[in-house]
């Protein structure tokens, strides 16, 4: 049982001040813009909820949101099973384990713009390794800047390359925490591989997998830099995800009102996801 102690507030005050400075003031700015119209010169006019209505009805927003959900859905159904499969195939101990962990984690430590630039160089049709291989060795026409489908495949593969290791590391951490006695008992019972996975390994990985799925959901939902550097949202608007569209409107066209309204809608979606995340996490905490 934790001690009741209101002086704990003193301990959290520095965190509160710093995060509030960064979160509340900008949020108020956004709320301000979202209900006003400006023609420059610091002149603002009350606009009510018009911007929200405009954004929610605009086809551009629907399309960006649709692409965003498609992207998040695709990377989740690829990365999660793939990550689990790789974690299952990894040795439980031995000299290779630290080597595997370090090399697998490496992509996650590369600055996001470098990830985009790296994949750009990798996929250039005539001088990139993948681009050359596809076009000249396999004879499949592949050019990300021309073909929307190729652009989509590339951003998905890039994200799989970048973040599958997160699922692997978490699933692996769950797997190594299973005592050997469980496997011995399963062997005595003559359990099949599938039964071992379904009734021993999967339940033990439940907590870490919840974390992995929700982190991947949220981070992929907020993704900006990698696809922006790789495709710039193109060809056309085919890979313009939600964040890319938002930055285009806010910093490119300086349409502050619609951008602010869109920000708040965007934020509300992530807030809902965070709440789900928190509820699931604390439920797990209470059980253990």
């Amino acid at each position, binding site marked *: 049982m934790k001690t009741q*102690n209101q002086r*704990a*507030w003193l301990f*959290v005050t*520095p*965190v*509160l001040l*710093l*995060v509030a*400075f*960064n*979160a509340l*003031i*900008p*949020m108020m*700015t*956004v709320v301000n813009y979202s209900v006003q119209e400006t023609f420059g010169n610091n002149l603002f006019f009350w606009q009510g909820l018009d911007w929200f209505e405009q954004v929610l009805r605009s086809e551009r927003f629907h399309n960006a949101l649709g692409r965003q959900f498609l992207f998040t859905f695709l990377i989740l159904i690829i990365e999660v099973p793939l990550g689990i*499969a*790789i974690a299952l*195939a990894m040795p439980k101990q031995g000299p290779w384990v*630290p080597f595997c962990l*370090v*090399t*697998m*984690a490496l992509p996650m*430590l*590369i*600055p*996001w*713009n*470098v990830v985009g*630039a*790296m994949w750009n*160089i*990798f996929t250039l049709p*005539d*001088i990139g*390794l*993948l681009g050359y291989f596809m076009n*000249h060795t396999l004879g499949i026409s592949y050019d990300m800047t021309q073909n929307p489908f190729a652009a989509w495949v590339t951003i998905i593969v890039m994200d799989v390359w970048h973040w599958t290791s997160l699922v*692997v590391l*978490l699933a*692996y*951490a769950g797997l190594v*925490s299973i005592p050997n006695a469980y496997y011995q008992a399963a062997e005595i019972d003559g359990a099949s591989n599938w039964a071992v996975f379904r009734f021993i390994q999967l339940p033990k990985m439940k907590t*870490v997998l919840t974390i*992995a799925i929700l982190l991947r959901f949220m981070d992929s939902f*907020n993704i900006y830099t990698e696809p922006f550097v790789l495709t710039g949202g193109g060809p056309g608007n085919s890979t313009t995800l939600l*964040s890319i569209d*938002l*930055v285009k409107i806010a*910093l490119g066209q300086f349409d502050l009102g619609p*951008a602010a309204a869109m920000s708040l809608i*965007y*934020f509300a979606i992530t807030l809902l996801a*965070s*709440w789900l*995340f*928190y509820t699931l996490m604390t439920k*797990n905490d209470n059980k253990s």
Partner: protein
Amino acid sequence: MRLKSLVPVIYILFLMLPIYWLVAMSFKTTNEILAGFSLFPQTWTLANYIEIFTDPTWYWGYINSIIYVTMNTVISVLVALPAAYAFSRYSFVGDKHLFFWLLTNRMAPAAVFALPFFQLYSAVGLFDTHLAVALAHCLFNIPLAVWILEGFMSGVPKELDETAYVDGYSFPRFFATIFLPAIKSGVGVAAFFCFMFSWVEMLLSKTLTAVEAKPIAAVMTRTASSAGYELGLLAAAGTLTIIPGAIVIYFVRNYIAKGFALGRV
């Protein structure tokens, strides 16, 4: 069984391929890159690296990035330590709500904050300083540090605190000489994750700087857009950004998963 052990090998090969290509590209001459495809550099050159280490715009990009990343890591861990202690040991009015609110900031899209941050930090006169980026990154790094440290601290039995009080330790002395050593791996992991997320982030650091504190990421985008043919230079710059991560990751290799799980494995 043999087949199974091949899976991690193939996966690691897949991870290394684009990295190999970046590194190989960085050792090629511009002529060779433009002339066509070659699997290995035909004529090895260090020209790209020499240019980066002799041109101040380039190498200051690295120094600027390292300065704000270090500042951010120190600030985040220092303020997160007492807060994490409070969350792990005490219950107080509003603790759950506060914890949840912190988490929402870790999940907030950076794109939402880009423009307001630009205005806020211009208004307080911090625009284009290292401190501005370091403070802005606190938005997602402090919540992360609090979560990770709270996870590690909850793993330390409460009896440790109680015994120390009985022995007559004051709180600051207990915290510094007994508690901190007990969670030192947690502090290391929290610092590592703050370093990592500040190092890889680009949208905010680019928005908040112009000349003086320009991060390496922004220097790279300039090269990418102004001179499309300088691929070798871009590749060399990219290769150099991988090195700090590769070094620090070695020290926390056994705790990476625990850190990503926010201290909850």
